[in-house]
C-alpha cells in the first residue's frame, strides 16, 4: 500500500505546486486555470467527460488487445523463421524511425473519422514494444532447456509451444505494461487529427473555445484513466504471466 500512498502524496504535491504557480505569478485563469476550478469543471461536465472518455477507452482497449495479439504472433513467427527475421526485423526498426504523428492523417484518410483510425493508431504505437520485448525474451530461452527438449525428441514447434513461449511470458508482460501507457497516446493523436468524439477531440474543442478549464479537466481524466489502465494491466500480468525468479 506504500505505492498507493506515495501516489496520493505525489498528486497532492503536484496540485500544491500548481496552486503556488498561480498565486505567485497571478496568471490569468484562461491561461492556467486553478485546481479548484478544474475540479469544479470535472464535476459539472461529468456526463460530457464520461461520454468522450468511453469512446477513447474503447479505442485504447481494442487497440491494446489487437496490438498485443499481433505482437504475440509476430514475435513467435520471427523467432521460428530466420528468413522472417532477416527480412522483417530491419523493416520493424525502420518503421520506428517514422514519427507516428505523420501517419495519423493517412490513417484518417484510409479508415475514416470513426473508431478504426484511432484503434489503428494505438495498435501501431504499441506493436513494436510488445513484439520487441516478447521477441527478446523468446530468444533468451535457457539453452539447457532447449537441449533437454531436443534430447527428449521434441519437434521445433513443440519446443516453441512448451518451452520457449511459457519461458518468455514475463517478457511479454513487460511489453504489455509499456503498451498500456502508450496506447492512449496513440488514440489521442488519432483524435487530434480528425474526430468528432473522444477526449482528444474534446481537448481540441475546449482549447479552440478558450475553455482552458475543460481542457485541463479532459487531460486529467485521460491521465487518471491511463494510470488505472496501467495498474489493471500490471495486476493482470502479476496474476497470470509473471513468475518468481528460479533460485
Amino acid at each position, binding site marked *: 500500500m506504500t505505492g498507493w500512498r506515495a501516489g496520493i502524496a505525489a498528486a497532492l504535491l503536484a496540485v500544491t505546486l500548481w496552486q503556488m504557480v498561480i498565486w505567485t505569478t497571478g496568471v490569468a485563469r484562461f491561461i492556467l486555470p486553478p485546481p479548484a476550478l478544474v475540479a469544479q469543471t470535472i464535476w459539472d461536465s461529468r456526463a460530457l467527460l464520461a461520454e468522450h472518455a468511453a469512446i477513447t477507452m474503447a479505442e485504447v482497449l481494442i487497440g491494446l488487445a489487437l496490438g498485443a495479439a499481433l505482437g504475440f504472433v509476430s514475435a513467435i513467427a520471427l523467432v521460428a523463421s530466420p528468413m522472417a527475421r532477416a527480412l522483417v526485423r530491419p523493416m520493424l526498426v525502420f518503421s520506428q524511425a517514422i514519427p507516428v504523428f505523420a501517419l495519423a492523417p493517412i490513417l484518417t484518410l484510409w479508415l475514416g473519422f470513426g473508431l478504426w483510425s484511432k484503434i489503428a493508431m494505438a495498435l501501431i504505437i504499441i506493436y513494436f514494444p510488445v513484439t520487441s520485448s516478447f521477441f527478446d525474451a523468446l530468444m533468451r530461452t535457457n539453452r539447457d532447456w532447449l537441449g533437454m527438449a531436443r*534430447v*527428449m525428441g521434441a519437434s521445433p514447434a*513443440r519446443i516453441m509451444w512448451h518451452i520457449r513461449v511459457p519461458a518468455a511470458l514475463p517478457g511479454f508482460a513487460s511489453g504489455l505494461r509499456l503498451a498500456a501507457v502508450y496506447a492512449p497516446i496513440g488514440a489521442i493523436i488519432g483524435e487530434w487529427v480528425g474526430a468528432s468524439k473522444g477526449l482528444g477531440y474534446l481537448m481540441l474543442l475546449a482549447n479552440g473555445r478558450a475553455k482552458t478549464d475543460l481542457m485541463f479537466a479532459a487531460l486529467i481524466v485521460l491521465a487518471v484513466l491511463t494510470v488505472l489502465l496501467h495498474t489493471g494491466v500490471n495486476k493482470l500480468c502479476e496474476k497470470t504471466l509473471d513468475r*518468481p525468479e*528460479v533460485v
Partner: protein
Amino acid sequence: MTKALRLTGSAMIQSTPIFSELDLTLEPGTWTCLLGASGVGKSTVLRLFAGLAEEVSFKGQMTDTGGVALMAQQDLLLPWLSVIDNVSVGARLRGETPDKARAEETLAQVGLADHATKHPTALSGGQRQRVALARTLMEDRPVVLLDEPFSALDALTRAQMQDLTAELLKDRTVLLVTHDPGEAARLGQTILIMTRSELIKVAAPDGPIPRPIDARDVLHTQASLLNQLRRPR
C-alpha cells in the same frame, strides 16, 4: 541394450582441438565414470552422445545410441509446471499423452509422492534433483548420460542421491561425468581418467554399486584417483 557404445575420433571447437584420437567404449548395462581436469573434453564426449554438439566438429565414428536420457548439474525443471508435470514433460514434448500413473509411481520411487502438485520453487535443491532423476527415469532409455548431476548438492544429500540413482539406474548403460574421485570410486564399474593425450583406465573397486563410502578399497581407489588427477601432465 546389449550393444557396447563406442566413440573413436577427434573433436575441435572452431579451430581449438578438444581431444584427439580418443577411443572410448561404454560397456552395456554398466556404469562408466569419466574423470578429468576441467576443459579436457569430458562434457564434449557427453554432448556428442546426446546429439547436442553442433558447435563441435567431430571426425571419427560413434555407435548410434538409439536415444539417450540426460541428467545435468542443473535440474532444468520448468518453473511453470508442477512437479508431476515436470516428471512427464518428455511425453508432452513429443506430443504423446503423459502416463500419469507411471509418473506418480516414478515420483514415489524417488520419495516425493507427496509433492506432486507443488511447483519446483517450493522444493529444496536435493528434492529438485530427485524430480530431475524421476524425469530421467520416465524417459526409460537404455543409455543414460549424467553430467555432474550431484556436484551442486551438499555432502549428505549427494551421498543419498548417489545411492538412489545407482539403485534406480541399475543395469543401464550409464556415462557419469564427474569431478569427484569419491563419486567415481563409489559408482564406477569402469573408471576412466581423460587427459589431453590419452584415456587412462583405473581399476575399479570390487562389489556392486553403490559401494559403501567407508569400504577400504573404495577409499583406496578414491585416494589413488585423486593422486592421478593431481599429477602434472
